[in-house]
């Protein structure tokens, strides 16, 4: 073995037993918060992940497969290739959908590895131009700041209610926008008022209190889908849970970590860890956020001070559908006659392994007929802001998703706001008529029907 190779081996071994130290480098990874060598050590290059990967399915290119991406990241660590644009493209073209993690026989954490590599890339090659502006305003300026998110929501409400939207659509003003943004504008849900701040910090349970839970209201969820948050609160309190909405909470940071901005991600994580420190159970109705919160420990992998706190926090996180199912949710009694299909949000199915419970919640509502969606756990193309940054790939995946959605259903249910926006766009684009709903909303309507029928609140 040459001296160079010896040096590399020593370095790789050092990486394997990584004790946090920010001065080390790993091959051509030269920046803080180094990727975790043990993650690629698990990969034996078998290729079982290939066909699970949406970008490989579309391109057939090895470098756009999970195995290929892991290989590229390892190659940088071995000093064979540089951190440059040709390396960055496959790493950033990943949807971070985690389908490969479900397929992998050896449990390789491809998602975590991709995020770590993106962290390196963003430090090596800070974004410039439009992407840089988008990143700065959206990710650093707006999402982390709930006040600004609310303002944005308010502006959107104004846009929708004042008639500007109508004028913009009629006059063709929107035609100056890129197609994918125009498509997106057309499906913006009617923006309600955010729950956080409008609701009290503690919403008491109906009847006897079984348990006290905190909920993450989220940024996109609370601005775009405050009705889902309202439904979540109603469903939980109906089931005897006291719901806490700590005001200090913020954006989960998932979008930042996905984009390689791990520092902002960490700031937001610290904020949430602090905000929820008095809660033993924290529920999330947005799969992407839930997955991110569950992985705060991964984010602080190289921070010995924060790591135990992050581990403790991550252990408290649960998806609301799983929580309700595991806690013997009140079965609705009145029929809700509808035909529905269920789409697995990537970060619920692949990220958190939650597939059975939300389906079961729906099936146990009387009158709900569930129709299987083929390849239900294949990404719809939303993937955080992927549909903004990679409209071509996201559009191709959305078309495939729409083709799979059974023709005779009235509703498409799921557990993530990003997917809801994306699939709503698909419904519009494909001239379909299905209603896009969150799983919890259907349960909420079922309880509502119970109440209407009985003319009084139903005891749980």
């Amino acid at each position: 073995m040459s001296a160079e190779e010896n040096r590399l081996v020593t370095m790789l071994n050092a990486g394997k037993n990584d004790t946090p130290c920010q001065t080390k480098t790993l091959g051509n990874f030269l920046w803080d918060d180094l990727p975790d060598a043990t993650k690629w050590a698990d990969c034996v290059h078998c290729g079982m992940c290939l066909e699970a990967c949406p970008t490989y399915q579309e391109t057939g290119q090895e470098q756009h497969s999970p195995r290929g991406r892991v290989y590229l990241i390892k190659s940088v660590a071995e000093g064979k290739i540089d951190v440059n644009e040709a390396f960055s493209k496959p790493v950033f073209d990943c949807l971070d959908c985690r389908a490969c993690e479900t397929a992998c026989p050896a449990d390789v954490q491809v998602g975590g590895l991709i995020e770590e590599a993106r962290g390196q890339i963003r430090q090596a090659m800070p974004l410039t131009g439009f992407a840089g502006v988008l990143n700065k305003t959206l990710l650093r300026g707006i999402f982390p700041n709930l006040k600004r998110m609310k303002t944005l929501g308010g502006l959107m409400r104004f846009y929708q209610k004042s008639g500007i939207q109508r004028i913009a659509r009629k006059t063709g003003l929107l035609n100056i926008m890129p197609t994918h943004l125009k498509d997106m504008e057309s499906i913006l849900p009617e923006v309600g008022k955010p729950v956080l701040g409008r609701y009290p910090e503690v919403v008491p349970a109906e009847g006897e209190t079984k348990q006290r839970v905190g909920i993450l209201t989220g940024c996109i969820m609370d601005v775009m889908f405050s009705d889902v948050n309202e439904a979540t609160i109603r469903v939980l309190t109906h089931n005897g849970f006291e719901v806490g909405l700590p005001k200090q909470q913020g954006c989960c940071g998932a979008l930042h970590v996905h984009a390689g901005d791990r520092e902002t991600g960490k700031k937001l994580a610290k904020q949430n860890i602090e905000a929820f420190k008095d809660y033993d159970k924290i529920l999330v109705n947005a799969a992407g956020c839930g997955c991110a919160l569950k992985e705060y420990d991964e984010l602080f992998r190289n921070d010995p001070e924060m790591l135990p706190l992050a581990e403790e926090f991550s252990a408290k996180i649960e998806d609301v559908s799983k929580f309700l199912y595991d806690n013997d949710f009140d079965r609705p009694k009145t029929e809700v006659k509808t035909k529905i299909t269920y789409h697995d949000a990537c970060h619920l199915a692949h990220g958190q392994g939650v597939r059975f419970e939300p389906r079961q919640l729906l099936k146990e509502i009387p009158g709900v007929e569930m129709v299987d969606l083929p390849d239900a756990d294949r990404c719809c193309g939303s993937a955080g802001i992927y549909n903004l940054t990679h409209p071509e790939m996201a559009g191709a995946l959305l078309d495939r998703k729409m083709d799979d959605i059974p023709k005779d259903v009235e509703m498409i249910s799921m557990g993530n706001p990003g997917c809801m926006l994306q699939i709503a766009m698909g419904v519009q684009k494909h001239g379909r008529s299905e209603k896009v709903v969150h799983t919890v909303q259907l349960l909420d309507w079922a309880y509502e029907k119970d109440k209407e029928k009985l003319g009084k609140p139903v005891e749980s």
Partner: protein
Amino acid sequence: MNRKKHRREKPDAVVQRLMNIVGEREVFYLKEDLISYECDGYTMSKGMPKAVVFVKSTEHVSAVVRCLNEEKIPYIARGAGTGLSGGATPLGGEVIISLVRMKRMLHLDLENRKAVVEPGFINLKLTQSISDKGYYYAPDPSSQYACTIGGNVAENSGGAHCLKYGVTTNHILGLEVVLPNGEVIEIGEEGIPDQPGYDLLGLLTGSEGTLGIVTKITVKVLKNPEGKKTVLAYYDDINDASQAVSEIIAAGIIPAALEMMDSIAIEGVESAAYPVGHPRDIAAFLLIEVDGIAAGIDDQIDEILTVCKHNNVREVKVAKDEAERGLWWANRKMGFGAMGAISPDYLVQDGVIPRTRLPEVLGKIAEISKKYELRIANIFHAGDGNLHPLILFDASIPGQSERAAKAGSECLKVCADVGGSITGEHGVGIEKSAEMRFIFSDAEMTAQTNIRAVFNPEDLLNPGKLFPQPGQCVEIKQAGQGDRSTVPVNAMGRGD
């Protein structure tokens, strides 16, 4: 050094010619785009290709091949790259012709039980696309989730169910092939089992991409068996398990599958994605499946249970439903990849032995394990004597890769010495070309290389594979060694 902005290299004249044929966006030539093509599922040997070309049609393949012939550039056809012997791995400087975008089913004729697919069609997708009509495609390599039927033809892949149903060659009815001179020929006549003249279909299937590039494949599809039952049997002594295997076959039963895993393999699969909850203190388990006409199945199962019990089985059970059966199979089929959970690297071997010599061979493999101080897990298709010893090692520990390679070669020697073969289904590729000498004399080898020379006279198509090449072979292995110290080795793939 790497902060500077990436400068896009200009394509050279050959790459430019390829771009003119298939389109600019379908040819990759930058190092970062090529590096993930430097090996397939066999990672002990690596080489950088010159370019990767994505083709969409037979015409593309033919034009690309003609161009490369004129330029005297060697080339390799590649599918999903899940092969386990380096069949799609460059030695350095080849152009890779990727067939993954040729993935259509061209024709389905269930009445005559056949389907025509392009080479990039995924193995499992064939069964998935006809299962609702009651049909399936029998060859089921464990990599079937990802591997292509074109690759299966090249490697003559087997699978867990080849004990009863045979390997890929038994399921191929016809091929369209682009020859190394760019000419397109069709071989095999659908529906005619024995054509006059030489059996080119048999010759091409398993030729490991050295005789031509397959662009269209007609395969047999089978009607789903009426009934199917699966048995799991736990043994405290691996010799008892081996004896049971021989007795089941001797009893005249031909199970659809008869698989065995030893304790180290069990440790692997139980630590990975699909744990079944096998007891951890057993020496081995057998996974036995029978299928066919529903009426006879229970009798066969009874007989199997009797044989198992007679051979001191600790516990034996029949899968209670499809979910349980599915889990048992997922646990088994993910077996190679699962090794990643207990060892940083592994090298899988693919020996074949006469079934009755199983206990003796297992004993010798255990000795090899001791000699090289490396753990060896055994996963195998016990029913047809196809062993997959998985040599576990850590490439980051100096010397272990070399020891693993030697141990692997010795395992194959043991198989050859008892009258077996060095490969059952993974192919020879780069990996086992030297070991071909264990089973073939010089004259036998020459007979084969002469055939290659007829099809592939300039040896531009997948050079350096399948046969030992004086001088070159040794070089390849040494070239690989430089990498080994930092490179995880091997995985599951096409054959298994």
